[in-house]
């Protein structure tokens, strides 16, 4: 895949992942039973909102940096010689 497609697709995918991690509310409506469950002593939906929205977001963004840096490098190295 060329770096342009990689950049666009990875950015779009990252956008969706961040939206889903920081806005897990569809889960409450799709699986209302989740609000009756517990995780580590907290109501599951409360715990998951914080856990996904912060604890999971940090390593995800670290992963984003790694991949986007590789794509940036490919972009910089991709001089096509001849401009279209």
């Amino acid at each position, binding site marked *: 895949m060329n770096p*342009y497609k990689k*950049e*666009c697709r990875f*950015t779009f995918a*990252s*956008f969706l992942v*961040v*939206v889903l*991690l*920081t*806005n*897990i*509310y*569809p889960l*409450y*409506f799709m699986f209302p039973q989740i*609000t009756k469950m517990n995780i*580590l*002593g*907290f*109501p599951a*939906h*409360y*715990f998951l*909102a*914080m856990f996904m*929205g*912060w*604890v999971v*977001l*940090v390593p995800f*963004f*670290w992963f*984003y*940096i790694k991949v*986007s*840096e590789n794509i*940036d490098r490919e*972009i*910089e190295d*991709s*001089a*096509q*010689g001849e*401009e*279209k």
Partner: protein
Amino acid sequence: MRLLMFAVLALLNTPTLVGAAEKAAKVYKFEPTKSISMFGLIYAVIMIVAFLYVGYISKKKTTSSDDYFTAGRGFGALSNGLAMTSNFLSLATFLGFTALIWKLQFVLVSFIMAWLGGFTMIAILLAPSLRRWGKFTSMGFIGERFGHVAKIVSVVCMVLLAQLYLIGQMKGIGNLFQVMFHWDYMTGLIVGGLIVTAYVTIGGMYGLSYNQTLQSIILMIAFLFPTIIVLMKLGCGAGSLLPPFGYSKLVPTMIEQLPTYFDPFTTVMGKIPLTFKFYTAILFTHIFGTIGLPHIAMRYFTASSVREAKKATLWGIFFVGFIFTTTLTIGFAAKLYTVQELQGVQGLMLNPKEADLLVLIMSQAFTPSWIAALPIAGAMAAGLSTIAGLLMVIGTGIGHDIYTTIKPNASDPSKVKMGLLFTALGGIATIMLALNPPDFLLTSAIWAYVVAASTFTPVLILGIWWKGANKIGANCGMIVGAFFSMMLWGTNGKLFGIQFVNMGPLGYLVSGLFTASAAWFVMIVISLLTGGEKDEKVRRFVDRIHGWPDYCEERYSGKTFPVGCAVVALGLMIWSMMPY
């Protein structure tokens, strides 16, 4: 943000929500002890001296406009991440969030996480390209991408948004001094306002950045230690050492005292239903509103490289998330304390106006004076850092972006002088406005978030990711977004006498869903109808800010992205007009 909190509280504080029994009950009145006031004053004086000294030494490092407006673009990842943290967090985080948790309970988790999502999204969608572009502000970018008219429109929007926030922060500082030190409001406002104006004006972006880094550290210490002690005193044991997740032992007590606290389908103690549309509106207003705030994006211009900017965001996400989740902890503890101790044992009702002081109330109730005074320092640091960031964006927006439009060949020293002049004028104007803050201030702060999502965000995202976005589309999109934002808020969702958007409770969120979508839709459709951007210089510019060493006509030119966005925007507009 603080104003946003107050505004929502004001909206909710309706006669229907305040029962007759509550009105009849004795009202709790917070009065800080003398020792807390004394320690608070000592901390405040030490901080003020430190901030002014940092501003003074930073002046020596400023030799060019690049230094003044972007701190020489040499800020490392950790320092910048800390500076981003205090720039993003304001008095709201310290005082207002706890008040909102007290009033709204669970839904605040969604508010907070959406804000954190918006903060992250800036780094994914905008920051790398803005940093590669390499100038000073979002408005400057809009000017280079869409022309001078768009730049002027965006600067006008920025000044309005920044002023609305600034007045609230300044007012908050004045109120803090008033409550804690028994100063009159005007003295607190003038002292706080002049200090921050002085150190930003003197030190420029260097002074601002170093001070924001310092303020972030103060903020975290001031929040963390009292929270740990409060949790320990409430019996959380070892869990107290990790405040974001350390209070599960108290959850059964909370459910027993207030069964609706964790209910995601209602708010205000089970009184108001929350729908799927409401949560979607939180997503759009808070995520897209945050992306559009120019003073947040401005920090990325100080990074030494794109990679350092991304790493700074990683630190920022960690610190901001830590403070946000700790806010949920202290908010939880405060709600439990008021329900169990104040109401249950002492028979006292907390006046909603006092809810902003819950962090201080909790600190005074559970910690020794020298710890209990720390939140005063934290609140000051949070307020001053945000004021400073906003003043800097005003100074740069007018003193650089507009000035260089009028005088393209202006010398470097004259740009610095203009930046300095307008930063100082912005500070003085804000103090003057905050001396007698207008009543409409609360609702206009909410409007500020909606306007950011409806003006800056579509123009910035489409300007970076779609070559076809053109001047007329951008100008129409910004004007339509700003117009609808103002109209719908001012008329509570009505347009020409017809109920246009069904607002529901906390209606500004649903109105933001409509106005932001309208701006996207108009900008895309008009750009497409007018043939898109044809200027090759501008099209090459888009390739360059993505890091491409060469130019390719086809890149960022496809129709799938803009048409897809327009369809989604249209769908959201129609949905927002349907009954809540």
